[in-house]
């Protein structure tokens, strides 16, 4: 009796053992640290995809399945190919970790099978880069990559390890910036530093004219441009006059001579007479040679007084004015209006 019971229990245990072998599903280990990174998330463009994952342990590896699905990451569910995705032209351009793979001929538009002669794995982290995979056609569309490893060379048979990755295409946001060419110019009797907001005054008073001393005054102008051709600054106007009585302008650069009729300007920090400042600022623009002579002055309407041959940061110029008169000049108020004209060059 006891022997019969032992025999039956043995039979039941054997049956349970067989049931467990045939009924319980095989559970593959997870591929960890897995990722699939397209170089671009833009829809319907051919781009590179990098597939990486860690193996949970050593095993015989003959093939790797990279399956793109549009419906689900779960390997138990049927796979619907993402619309527009096309991996049929993919190429394997780099591989690391476990190597020796090539794309198997049985691969399809949404299924890449990497195949090699089966070998026991020695590496943990595996990485494979593919090119020429066309991403799904719709922006902001989720899709999935199911990864699996096999001992066979064609992704058939039992799965050793597996795992899935979710991806999405994205609406592309293009950011562009256009820097327009500009020309900035301001004029004043005073300009602090290189700041046009400080430009102040539009009347230069050279004071009382006398045959014994040179009357002086100054004004400033600031120019800058990012245009490649740079800029020029012209001066226009007449010499100082009071009705029909005029102070002779200096047609070519000359020093100040009190007692003779002279009107002229330059853009320097002069010492005789003491008037003006050197150009200042981060730019490299220079006075025109005619107006760039220390202690020498000239004035011809229409002359270019300063120029920058290329794009140029701000430079503040100080225009110095001198006026000399002789004994015969009739009294009166002598004045002129000078116009500075800044033009972008090309």
């Amino acid at each position: 009796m006891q022997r019969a019971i032992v025999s039956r229990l043995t039979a039941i245990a054997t049956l349970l053992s067989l049931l467990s072998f045939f009924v319980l599903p095989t559970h593959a280990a997870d591929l960890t640290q897995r990722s699939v990174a397209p170089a671009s998330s833009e829809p319907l463009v051919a781009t590179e995809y990098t597939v990486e994952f860690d193996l949970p342990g050593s095993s015989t590896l003959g093939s790797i399945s990279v399956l793109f699905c549009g419906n689900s990451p779960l390997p138990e569910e049927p796979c619907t190919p993402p619309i527009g995705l096309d991996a049929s032209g993919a190429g394997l351009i780099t591989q690391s970790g476990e190597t020796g793979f090539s794309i198997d001929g049985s691969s399809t538009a949404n299924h890449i099978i990497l195949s090699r002669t089966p070998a026991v794995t020695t590496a943990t982290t595996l990485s494979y880069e593919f090119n020429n995979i066309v991403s799904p056609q719709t922006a902001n569309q989720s899709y999935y990559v199911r990864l699996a490893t096999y001992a066979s060379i064609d992704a058939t048979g039992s799965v050793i390890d597996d795992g899935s990755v979710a991806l999405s295409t994205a609406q592309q946001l293009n950011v562009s910036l256009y820097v327009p060419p500009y020309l900035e110019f301001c004029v004043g009797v005073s300009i602090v530093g290189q700041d046009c907001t400080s430009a102040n005054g539009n009347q230069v008073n050279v004071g009382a004219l006398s045959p014994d001393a040179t009357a002086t005054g100054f004004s400033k102008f600031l120019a800058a441009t990012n245009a490649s051709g740079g800029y020029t600054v012209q001066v226009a106007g007449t010499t100082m006059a009071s009705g029909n009585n005029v102070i002779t302008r200096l047609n070519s650069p000359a020093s100040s001579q009190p007692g003779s009729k002279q009107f002229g300007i330059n853009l320097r920090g002069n010492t005789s007479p003491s008037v003006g400042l050197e150009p200042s600022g981060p730019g490299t623009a220079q006075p025109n040679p005619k107006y760039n002579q220390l202690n020498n002055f000239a004035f011809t309407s229409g002359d270019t007084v300063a120029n920058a041959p290329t794009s140029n940061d701000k430079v503040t110029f100080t225009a110095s004015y001198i006026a000399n008169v002789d004994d015969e000049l009739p009294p009166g108020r002598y004045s002129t209006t000078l116009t500075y004209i800044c033009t972008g060059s090309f």
Partner: protein
Amino acid sequence: MESWKLARSGLSQIVLVIVGALIVSGAFFVYKSTAQSAGNGFSVSPTRIVIDSEQAQPGASVKTEEITVTNVTSESVTAQVDIRDFEAGDNEDGTPVVVIDEDRQLSTTIKDYIEPIEPFTLEPDESKTIQATINIPANATPVATTARYYSPRRTVVIRT
């Protein structure tokens, strides 16, 4: 040389110019102080507009691209827009020189083709966009063998 090349290529150009004016005065035996007012200044963008010959057909009315004028001073300023000719500078390095003498008219002038632009006032740091309209007469004829063309060189002067 540059202007000749441009004319040969049938390009018409508008150069944007900023002008600032000052009064210089002195008194002979008389001294009188004068109150100072604000300086003046603008920023303009772009600095040059090129209109190609396909646009500038006889009888056409061409609007330039928008020109942005900004008051870069700390006071409100009223901008006057003048149309002036310009020509190549003496050194022919591409430096345009505005024709100052209003009585001097270049043979290539098209000043009369450009519609006047009303003055406008800008507060500090305020910008305004303007457009120049060029009305090309139906009988305008290009002359490509010289520097003449019906719109080779034109200047829009922004001034206070």
